């Protein structure tokens, strides 16, 4: 049994539903006067961030502190890592300080997998985003947000997202959020459609468990949720699309397009939003947009993951797909 959370693809349907249900209980802690549980008292978690991501780091930190874990924040900037110390050395140094779990954010795809499977350290590894590979807690919080909005807070308990139609729009090629979401949403029974210009879709996407479209307008009326992904302006310079203006005209979500979505459908965004690029201010600020809710849900999801991986003598989440190296 694995003790790590590396990829959304490693989660079974039952694992994912257990995490979502647990997060639903964790969410209630936020409504209490004392937003703290003693569950991880005496456990030390390091947030090992080789890449700047203040929002993800803060979300994990809030989750860890609400569970009473001791938290060490390690940012690669200005540290020995920038002086050439390797991932292995850094991780081993931290483990020597008695760390029980490592939450890692890294620019290189597969770095968390290496950390978990190379025998460098014994601590549990939680992937907080690696390169263009995976960001499993983001996918979980997105699924959590969808389940709450589309199935119901209490009605959703024990349920998956069977038959829900989810459209993900934007830079799929460079996006770990899209990869994680496709894996998890498929596991949860949702029907996923990716919408992007062909240049921002990876070769091989045709084998993913989802539909692919180049046309946003035809997809919108058939969507229960539309997730807009950030598109970095610099992509324009590498000829992924001609201009910002053309991108937002073809793939941006504005008020007119939002009106073509079914009435119950929601707009999601993992943040940070580039207003005027993939999303207009009108849509971003509308009550159909769940961006802020997703942030709050992120803390609950991360509490659930930390509890289920670290709360007992062994993890409660099974990993049937055997990806371990020999």
């Amino acid at each position: 049994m694995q003790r790590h959370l590396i990829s959304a693809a490693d989660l079974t349907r039952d694992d994912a539903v257990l995490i979502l249900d647990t997060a639903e209980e964790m969410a209630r802690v936020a409504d209490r006067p004392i937003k703290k549980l003693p569950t991880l008292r005496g456990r030390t978690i390091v947030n090992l961030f080789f890449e700047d991501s203040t929002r993800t780091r803060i979300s994990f930190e809030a989750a860890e502190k609400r569970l009473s874990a001791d938290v060490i924040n390690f940012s690669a900037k200005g540290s020995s890592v920038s002086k050439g110390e390797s991932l292995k050395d850094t991780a081993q140094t931290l483990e020597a300080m008695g760390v029980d779990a490592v939450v890692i954010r890294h620019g290189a795809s597969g770095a968390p997998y290496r950390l978990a499977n190379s025998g460098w350290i014994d601590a549990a590894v939680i992937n907080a985003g690696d390169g263009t590979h995976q960001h499993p807690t983001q996918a979980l919080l997105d699924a959590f947000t969808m389940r709450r909005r589309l199935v119901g807070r209490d009605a959703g308990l024990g349920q998956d997202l069977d038959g829900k139609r989810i459209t993900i729009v934007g830079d799929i090629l460079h996006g770990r959020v899209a990869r994680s979401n496709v894996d998890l949403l498929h596991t949860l029974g949702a029907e996923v459609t990716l919408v992007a210009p062909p240049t921002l879709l990876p070769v091989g996407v045709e084998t993913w468990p989802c539909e692919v479209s180049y046309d946003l307008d035809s997809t919108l009326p058939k969507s229960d949720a539309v997730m807009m992904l950030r598109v970095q302006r610099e992509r324009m310079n590498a000829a992924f699309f001609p201009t910002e203006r053309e991108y937002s005209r073809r793939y941006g979500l504005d008020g007119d397009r939002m009106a073509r979505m079914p009435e119950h459908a929601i707009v999601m965004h993992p943040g940070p939003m580039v207003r005027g690029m993939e999303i207009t201010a009108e849509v971003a600020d509308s009550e159909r947009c769940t961006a802020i809710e997703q942030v709050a849900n992120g803390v609950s999801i991360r509490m659930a993951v930390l509890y289920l991986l670290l709360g007992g003598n062994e993890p409660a989440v099974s990993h049937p797909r055997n990806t371990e190296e020999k």
Partner: protein
Amino acid sequence: MDTQASDARPVLEGPDIARVLTRIAHEIVERAKGADDVVLLGIPTRGVFLAQRLAAKLEEITDRKIPVGSLDITMYRDDLRLQPPRALARTEIPGDGVDGRLVVLVDDVLFSGRTIRAALDALSDIGRPRAVQLAVLVDRGHRELPIRADYVGKNLPTSLRETVKVQLAEEDGRDTVLLGAKRTATGAQH
């Protein structure tokens, strides 16, 4: 269930449980002088059903709405590290909260006292009751902490080799308390 039932001896049957809960309800009213600030919090799973039943009886007696909720103690357990994490149950605090009120914790079986210790910790993170009392259906002894119940349905002397199984209609399809030899069975074991 029948195989377990055959070698486990019922010590309380449906009518006994109803009678015992009625008595506890009266005791609460008496001790709490009318029970006008009582909040019942059941400890999942079966304590919640008992709390709901008690609340119904209290409402009959007092003709007043009795706030009832649930208090999950999983995250406060002292044996978390001894087994895989358990699924969480619901904590549902009635709208007016617990501050300044008399909270009666309700559980099915009182055994080591560790569950109640965890419940007291959980409760203190939620608010500051005027006082906390404990009601249990069965007290089987063998306390490991200085904890006692204020209301006891039945004192049941047991040996550590025995198990006490409480089954309630809401969860198990029938009301009964079984005393048997140690083995796995349906229903809660204590």
